[in-house]
Structures are given as C-alpha cells and as structure tokens.
C-alpha cells in the first residue's frame, strides 16, 4: 500500500485551527438552533473559522446582553462583523495563522467588559478624581469599613477642575462614626435615590463608588487592572455564561445609575453635596437609634430571663424548662 504523505501542520497551524474549532464547539453548545441552521455545513477553513469566532462573540452579546472584549488587529481596530451573525459567519476572505492563534484569548475564556469605577487607581501616583459625588462619599465614609485608604484632604487638593465651593462643601462634611453598619446604611440611603429605584439591590449603588458591590464586573475595570496589577482582568469559563451575563447586566445598570446620580450632584453644586451629607447622616442616626433600641430590648430580655432562671433555681416543684418558658412569655414585648 502506498504510504500517505505527511500533513503540513506546524504548531501554529494546529493552534489556529484549534481556536476556530473551539469557537464552533461553543457555537453548537450555546446556540444550537443557529448552529444547525447556519454553521454546521460550512467548510472548516480558516476564514470560516474566523467567522465562527466573530459570530460566537456577537451572539453572546446580543442574546445575553453581555458586552465582551473583542479582538483587535495590529492597528487597534476591533474585528469587524455584520449586523446579522449568519452573515458574519461567511464575511471574511482570509485570515493569518498568527491572528487566528491570538484569538484564543477570546475563545478559550469569556472576556466580559468591566464597569468598575476604578477605586484602586486613586492609590496610584498621578491619579485623582474631580467627581464631587465620589469625593463626598469618600469624605463621609472615610472612617468606616468602606474607607478607600486614601487621605481625603489630599484627594481634594488634587481634584483639579472641582469648583472651590464644592470642594469646600465636601471638606465640611462630617465623617460617619467608625462603627456604623455600612451595608444597612447604604441600603437606607439608596431608598431615597431615584436612580436606585430599578436596581435589584439598590444599596449597591452607594457601594459602587467604593468598588464594594460584590459584583466582580462592577468592582473593577480593565484600565485599573492593567495599571495597578499589571494584568488583564480575569476571564471566565463559558459554563458560567448565565451568571456572568447577570453580573454584566447589573454592572451596566450600576454604571448608568451612578452616572445619573453624579450628574444630579454636579448640577446642584455645593447644595447637592450638603444634601447628600444630610441624607447620609439622617439615615446613620436612624440606624444608631434603632441599634440603641435593640440593645435596650436585648438587655431587658436578658434581665428578665436571668431573673427567671435565678427564681427557678429556688423552686423545686416546677420543671425548670416550663417555668422559664412561662417567664419569657410574660416578659414585656421588646
């Protein structure tokens, strides 16, 4: 039998083809109807495999409302695509092996867009913010668990473009006490913010300013990750598509809502800053009063139960459990 000639596949060829076929596999797994109708019968040639990569990213963005990081060419231009993903599949005339191999970063993991405000950047030299909303929040929460760890007067000094009157108003805001419950406080403050009305967890709108929402796509951004940590943000496994999409939608909502809140505070000038301070402190006082009431109630209950226990130890006729329950039931409501 005549032996078959060897295959002309270099490592780069293998890498490039594998990237494209992985994209095809993901297309079939996540968009089976589209795949069956438009992709299954296409030839597995490099230009169609590039089409599969682009169509995959496009379908994820459209179907899951999950903006992704797109591959760029040497000129920084994003990979082009048609409006219709079916047309995207067949739109390319050719692709280099090198470019195809580089697409692996966008195929072997999901690279969602990040929407964080970039709090960590403020820790770096040369970075500051002139956003009066952020600065006011940082001033108010500087001693709490949400403290960003930066000297606020210095931040105000570096806030070029911030009107002096606004900077002064921010500097006058009285910081919250150290032990205030920030999670509850943020939730209470957000109740009075029209921008937070449609959010699934309104309190996150306030925590967004601190990068403390708990949503990984809302707590950092790509620029910050590269500048501060020297790496691109994490990619995600495709099996987490639904979860990442949910995070992305909330992060986008937070980004937009915070932008609207920011605009409102800017437009109101120093008065807007003062109103914010009043709002935050009013709810902080509410929390403190509630905490004091709860502490008193707890003490009263402990005293009542303690007295019952003491009495019970001298009463040999009744069972201890029944007597304790009877005393507790007779105790005044907290």
């Amino acid at each position, binding site marked *: 039998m*005549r*032996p*078959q*000639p*060897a*295959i*002309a*596949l*270099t*490592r*780069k*060829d*293998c*890498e490039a*083809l*594998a990237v494209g*076929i*992985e994209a*095809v*596999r993901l297309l*079939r797994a996540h968009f089976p109807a589209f*795949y069956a109708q438009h*992709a*299954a*019968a*296409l*030839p*597995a*040639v490099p230009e*169609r495999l590039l089409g*599969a990569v682009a169509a995959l990213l496009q379908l994820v963005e459209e179907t899951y409302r999950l903006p992704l990081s797109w591959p760029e060419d040497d000129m920084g231009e994003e990979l082009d695509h048609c409006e219709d993903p079916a047309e995207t599949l067949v739109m390319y005339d050719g692709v280099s092996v090198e470019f195809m191999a580089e697409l692996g970063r966008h195929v072997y993991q999901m690279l969602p867009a990040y929407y964080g405000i970039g709090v960590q950047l403020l820790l770096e030299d040369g970075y500051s913010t002139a956003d009066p909303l952020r600065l006011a929040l940082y001033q108010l929460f500087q001693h709490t668990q949400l403290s960003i760890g930066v000297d606020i007067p210095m931040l105000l000094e570096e806030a070029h473009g911030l009107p002096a009157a606004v900077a002064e108003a921010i500097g006058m805001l009285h910081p919250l006490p150290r032990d205030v419950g920030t999670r509850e406080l943020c939730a209470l403050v957000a109740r009075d913010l029209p921008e937070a009305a449609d959010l699934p967890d309104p309190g996150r709108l306030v925590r967004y300013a601190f990068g403390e929402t708990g949503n990984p796509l809302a707590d950092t951004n790509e620029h910050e990750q590269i500048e501060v940590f020297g790496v691109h943000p994490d990619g995600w496994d495709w099996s987490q598509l639904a979860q990442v999409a949910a995070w992305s939608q909330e992060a986008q909502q937070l980004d937009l809502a915070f932008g609207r809140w920011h605009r409102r505070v800017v437009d109101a000038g120093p008065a807007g800053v003062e109103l914010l301070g009043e709002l935050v402190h009013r709810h902080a006082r509410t929390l403190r009063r509630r905490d004091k009431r709860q502490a008193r109630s707890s003490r009263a209950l402990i005293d009542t139960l303690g007295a019952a226990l003491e009495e019970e130890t001298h009463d040999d006729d009744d069972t201890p459990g029944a007597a304790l329950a009877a005393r507790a039931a007779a105790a005044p409501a907290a």
Partner: protein
Amino acid sequence: MTTASTKIVIVAGNRYTVPAETDNEAIRQQLIAMGFADVASAEIKKGTDGEAETVEFVKKAGTKGLDAAALAALLARVPPLPVRSGAAASAGMHPADVQLLRRLATGQLTFEQALEGCILELLAAADMLAGRAFEVEAAARRQGEVLCQRCDSIPAAAAAVPSGW
C-alpha cells in the same frame, strides 16, 4: 519487490526499500540523530533500478559501515517526506486520524464533521508531536552554537601541514 512508489537506499553495499516520498535529507538526519554520525559527510548518489529510484550514501574512505540490521530498523522509522519543518506532526498518529487531519488541512471537513471527528483532540496531539519536532531542532541548533563557540575559543597554532598542500 520495488516499484515507482518505493525508493532503494544503498548504504555500504546494502540495499533497503523505503517509501518513494521519503526525503533523502530526512533519512540522513534520522541516521545522524540516532548516532550514525559518519553518514553526515556521506555523498548521495542517485540512480534508478527498474522503476525505482536508488539513493546511495557513499561514505568517505575509512569510515565504519553500518550494521545492516540496525540500518534496516532505522530506515523503517524514517518518517515520510515532510512538507514543512513542523510536518512531523503526523508521525506516530493513527492513519485514520492522520486522514481526518489531512481533510481538515485541505478544507474538506465541515464544522459538524470536525466536531464529530473529535478534531480538537487530534489537533492537540498533532501540536504536541510538532512541538517535539521543534524541540529536537532547537536542541540541534543549540549544540551547533556551542560547537561554534568552542571552535572560536581554540587558539591559533602553527600549521603542521607542509606549505603549499
């Protein structure tokens, strides 16, 4: 039996049959890589024997001939003609897998056929094999560089051969 699809390799008077596509330099490199350094300087004389092409490795006088059995074993391991340097990827793979990869490489598979054929696993295997081939090349290059450095560092000595030789 020899036909147009086979090639006869002649070394030290012994004749061996290999696939016609087998590259002469690949045979030589394979022999060198396996420790038969004297083949490196041998000349290749081509001819024909009936329909078959003959390739004779003519070594310089004084070099030791190869053991016939060892050579036969070596030649059986010489891969077919690689089209490119990384083409050794197909060596060691099942013929059906090689066939599938060939169809992929020549654009004869659809997306669905590629997925059904577990082509990702095959590409990973091919990639690994191609990687090994490159590692061998790189090691050979490194050895060559070391040798050149050593030669560079040898001090010049008076010529021992008569002038005019």
